[in-house]
């Protein structure tokens, strides 16, 4: 007994020692070779979002506004095959289904209605589709669904043709078979949600929604038993899009599924779903694009069509290690499309490296910023340090002070010596105490106002804006002057250009400036409120809630709203404060807004008086640093991190991003040549935001920036020297107190004192 006790004790001690020493892990693990990689497929001219794969490897490309284009198995295309634009009564197309022989069906809304019943529903705000069928010879005919089990006006949202050419369609509660000749609809089975894809293999059709797979035996005309494994998979993998395809004739019992997390294989009736390609290592992981269609090729490769005119071929490469030998970890608090995109480019350039992009607040988990920072700090404390860190909404000084960030002067100097980057913007990030740069913004926003010149003829300071608002109020006694719904909006629109002026070099708070700020914004809010009674303001808030979410709103949304709201509210507001966030769309956006405002105010003959300019606030020459990137001192892959930083700063990265993602609000590139190139991009996509291809046929004027305007923008970039970074303690504190000042709870003086008191504790800490 005594011996046994000793043995037990020794065993426990050994186990503890083994656990603490990490015994059991191998140091040099051999990685097997072979994994799926992808390459971009060059598409014929046009803007395509969808693909219909054919069994012989050919495919049809189409978009809701782009005609059907056939591409053969060798990738050759003869161009457009069908014209869908001939029918003058089409207002907008919504859904399209294509058969292997090129026959197609689409749902649309008309410009004018011939059916009073449907028109009444349409007027009531309920979108009702009409349908067209185009046969393989291009003959069009209206398709009028009818029959038992189909209620008139039910929208058919998903279409699929079986290999035999039968049309199947799905509404949000059922799946139907449709006779394309007669329009007769046969209801097959009910579904819980909208079916999003239908796949055929033999006599069985698989219809899948976001959480359930339905197996329908077409020969027997009955639903087969479901599959729990597939249902579970669908409910957890459908975010961001999921595409399906059956295997070829030899492997028709295999179902392939592609989604953000990767490519999967499933054998019909089985209970196991096997991952064959990792989303992180292929284009499937791109959060900016949704997979739209999947094609299985004979050689074991796959084609994946994505939204945004992008297609890749995924092929098995035996020369690549099954998983990359090295890993570069990139961290940011919030999802950043540009950073994710850079990771994919980097991975393509370095196939032996896996770029692991991690976000602290991924949108689904409701983690607050503070919690995310706490989690990050715990990681850092435990030695789990990322290689690259995006410092947006983080305290850069704090992390640099603690030795977490690597000095970047050495990396940036060649770019500055060659005049590639805007030096003033990079220098704005220099930490005065240490005289070193630890992070660099990849993009910036520039502050702008838009309105009638007569209201703003001063230096564009905060006081000038107040004076301008007073003038505007005299002329327009009713309604809003600024686009503000709540007190917080005034603060959001003005604080970035004032906040940098409130602190001295030693970090002390300038209470006088803060008091002046509160006085000015309070006056602005009072002027804006004076145009409404309580009921009027409530109605104004309610009418604008559609594109406004005050609880979640930060400056990024306000910046966006500057353009969007200006376009939506022209004639209702007389001044807009916001940020220029995107060079091409931004410049043209301003033009269009201006044109729209002028059109709306035509009777007032304002066409030449509506203008825009930079506004200085209290600080002057402010730029809002975006996508601020730093490298971690204790990162495991310092050389890779440096290479990644160089990729971020490269012209192809900055330019390609805009070419691939023209409609984004990342900011203005800090590379001079890239910014110039972007301004010169002649891409029709840039025009879409302004309704350049408006399907209603109402073509808004689409202005491209003139040379003079480009020079104006370059000059603004050259002058920008005062960095605003959101998420500082001072901003949060001033925002919280500012709302109370605007609500009248505190006087501006009391508000400033309150901020000073709170900041005093923070400073003491």
């Amino acid at each position, binding site marked *: 007994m005594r011996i046994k*006790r000793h043995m037990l*004790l020794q065993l*426990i001690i050994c186990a*503890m020692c083994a656990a603490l020493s990490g015994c059991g892990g191998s140091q040099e693990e051999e990685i097997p070779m072979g994994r799926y990689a992808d390459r971009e497929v060059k598409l014929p001219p046009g803007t395509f979002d969808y693909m219909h794969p054919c069994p012989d490897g050919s495919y049809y490309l189409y978009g809701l506004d782009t005609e059907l284009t056939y591409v053969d198995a060798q990738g050759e295309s003869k161009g457009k095959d069908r014209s869908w634009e001939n029918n003058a009564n089409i207002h907008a197309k919504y859904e399209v289904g294509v058969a292997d022989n090129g026959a197609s069906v689409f749902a649309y809304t008309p410009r004018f209605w011939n059916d009073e019943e449907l028109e009444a529903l349409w007027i009531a705000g309920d979108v009702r589709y009409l349908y067209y069928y185009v046969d393989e010879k291009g003959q069009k005919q209206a398709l009028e669904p009818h029959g038992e089990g189909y209620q008139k006006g039910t929208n058919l949202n998903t279409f699929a043709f079986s290999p035999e050419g039968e049309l199947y369609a799905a509404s949000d509660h059922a799946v139907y078979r449709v006779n394309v000749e007669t329009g007769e609809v046969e209801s097959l089975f009910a579904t819980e949600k909208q079916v999003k894809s239908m796949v055929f293999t033999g006599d069985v059709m698989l219809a899948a929604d976001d959480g359930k797979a339905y197996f329908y035996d077409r020969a027997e005309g009955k639903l087969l038993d479901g599959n729990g494994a597939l249902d579970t998979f669908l409910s957890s993998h459908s975010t961001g899009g999921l595409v399906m395809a059956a295997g070829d004739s030899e492997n028709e019992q295999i179902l392939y599924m592609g989604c953000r997390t990767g490519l999967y294989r499933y054998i019909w009736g089985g209970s196991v779903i096997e991952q064959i390609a990792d989303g992180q290592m292929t284009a499937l992981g791109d959060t900016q694009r949704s997979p739209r269609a999947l094609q299985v090729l004979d050689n074991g490769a796959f084609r994946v069509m994505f939204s945004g005119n992008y297609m890749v071929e995924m092929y098995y490469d035996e020369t690549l290690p099954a998983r990359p030998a090295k890993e570069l970890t990139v961290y940011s608090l919030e999802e950043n499309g540009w950073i994710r995109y850079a990771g994919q480019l980097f991975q393509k350039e370095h196939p032996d490296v896996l770029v692991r992009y991690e976000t602290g607040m991924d949108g689904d988990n409701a983690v607050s910023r*503070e919690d995310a*920072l*706490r989690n990050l*700090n715990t990681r*850092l*404390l435990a030695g789990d340090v990322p290689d690259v860190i995006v410092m947006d909404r983080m*305290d850069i000084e*704090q*992390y640099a*002070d*603690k*030795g*977490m960030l690597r000095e970047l002067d050495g990396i940036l100097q060649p770019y500055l010596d060659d005049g590639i980057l805007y030096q003033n913007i990079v220098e704005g990030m220099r930490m005065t105490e240490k005289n070193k740069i630890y992070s660099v913004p990849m993009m910036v926003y520039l502050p702008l106002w838009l309105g009638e010149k007569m209201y703003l003829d001063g230096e564009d300071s905060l006081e000038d804006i107040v004076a301008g608002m007073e003038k505007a109020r005299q002329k327009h006694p009713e309604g809003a002057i600024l686009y503000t719904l709540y007190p917080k909006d005034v603060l959001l629109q003005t604080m970035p250009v004032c906040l940098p002026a409130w602190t001295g070099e030693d970090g002390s708070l300038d209470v006088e400036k803060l008091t002046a700020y509160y006085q000015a914004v309070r006056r602005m809010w009072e002027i804006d409120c004076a145009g409404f009674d309580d009921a009027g303001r409530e109605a104004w808030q309610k009418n604008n809630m559609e594109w406004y979410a005050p609880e979640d709103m930060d400056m990024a949304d306000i910046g966006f709203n500057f353009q969007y709201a200006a376009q939506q509210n022209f004639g209702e507001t007389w001044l807009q404060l916001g940020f220029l966030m995107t060079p091409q769309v931004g410049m043209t956006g301003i033009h269009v807004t201006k044109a729209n405002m002028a059109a709306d105010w035509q009777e007032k003959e304002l066409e030449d008086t509506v203008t825009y300019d930079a506004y200085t606030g209290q600080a002057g020459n402010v730029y809002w640093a975006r996508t601020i990137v730093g490298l971690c001192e204790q990162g495991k892959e310092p050389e890779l991190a440096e290479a990644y930083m160089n990729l971020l700063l490269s012209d192809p990265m900055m330019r390609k991003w805009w070419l691939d993602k023209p409609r984004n609000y990342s900011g203005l590139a800090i590379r001079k040549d890239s910014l110039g190139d972007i301004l010169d991009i002649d891409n029709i996509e840039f025009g879409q935001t302004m309704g350049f291809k408006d399907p209603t046929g109402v073509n808004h004027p689409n202005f491209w920036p003139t040379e003079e305007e480009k020079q104006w923008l370059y000059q603004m970039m050259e002058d920008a020297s005062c960095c605003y970074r959101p998420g500082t*303690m001072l901003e949060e*504190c001033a925002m*919280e107190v500012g709302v109370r000042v605007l609500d009248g*709870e505190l006087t501006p003086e009391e508000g400033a004192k*309150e901020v000073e*008191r*709170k900041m005093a*504790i*923070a400073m*003491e*800490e």
Partner: protein
Amino acid sequence: MFLLPGFSGVMIFYLLPFFEVVRRSFLKSGNGAFVGMDNYRAVFGNGAFALAVRNTFLYMAAGVPLLMGISLFLSLLLRNLLQRRKLVSALLLPMAVPAAVMVLTLQILIDRQGVINGVLTHVSGKITALPAFTAIDYLNTGWALAVVVCSFLWKNTGYMVILWLAGLAALPKEVEEAAQVDGANRWQSWHYIIRPGLSGSFFTIGMLSVLQIFKSYREVWMVAGSYPQEHIYFLQHLLQNWYLKLEFDRMAALTVIMSLVLLAVCLLLQKRLE
């Protein structure tokens, strides 16, 4: 051998981490350089630390005696009531209320436009002899500590009443009855029989009350944020904020200091009650 499993748990989950904290308190966070007592000096020289210590002490000085006194008084009242079980259950209700609900209720009560201000304004309006009442922002003025103490009492009194009742139930009734037969009045029964008999409970309840003071930070943080009014800025605020600011070295030093102080308080209380 018999103690080994339990002791291993204590070693792994309590003592080893604490030793690690002690070790880190002598190192600089970031590069891990040995800095001797610098972190302790930095803590003692920190203005926010002085403020937090003062506030935590005031909170404790006001909250602990009040909590112990009120709960003891209530338990003495309830002791001989036949229906006391139902009453005790009602007193426990605040313990079951989720922190978020409690914070919401508190905000409804003490907001500038809240219930308390509303009632006081109404009363002062009705009674012309009273001066006009101006709404008070309780959490952003000198009232803040009083609000926090009140919410602390509301939340913890029921629990402490139960502990006192358990202590009282353990006292032999015969002694008290004999004293009453001998002519002892209520004060004499309390002073000479009940109070000495409850000395063990005094220690336990006292320690638990002190610990509850530290645990009530969550509600304070939820209602007033990381930088509340200066009278309710406690040591936990400082620790939390340092954590966000990566001041791990100072945090470690402060944790060691706090542990030592708590240990000293514990020993002192125990010695006094012995």
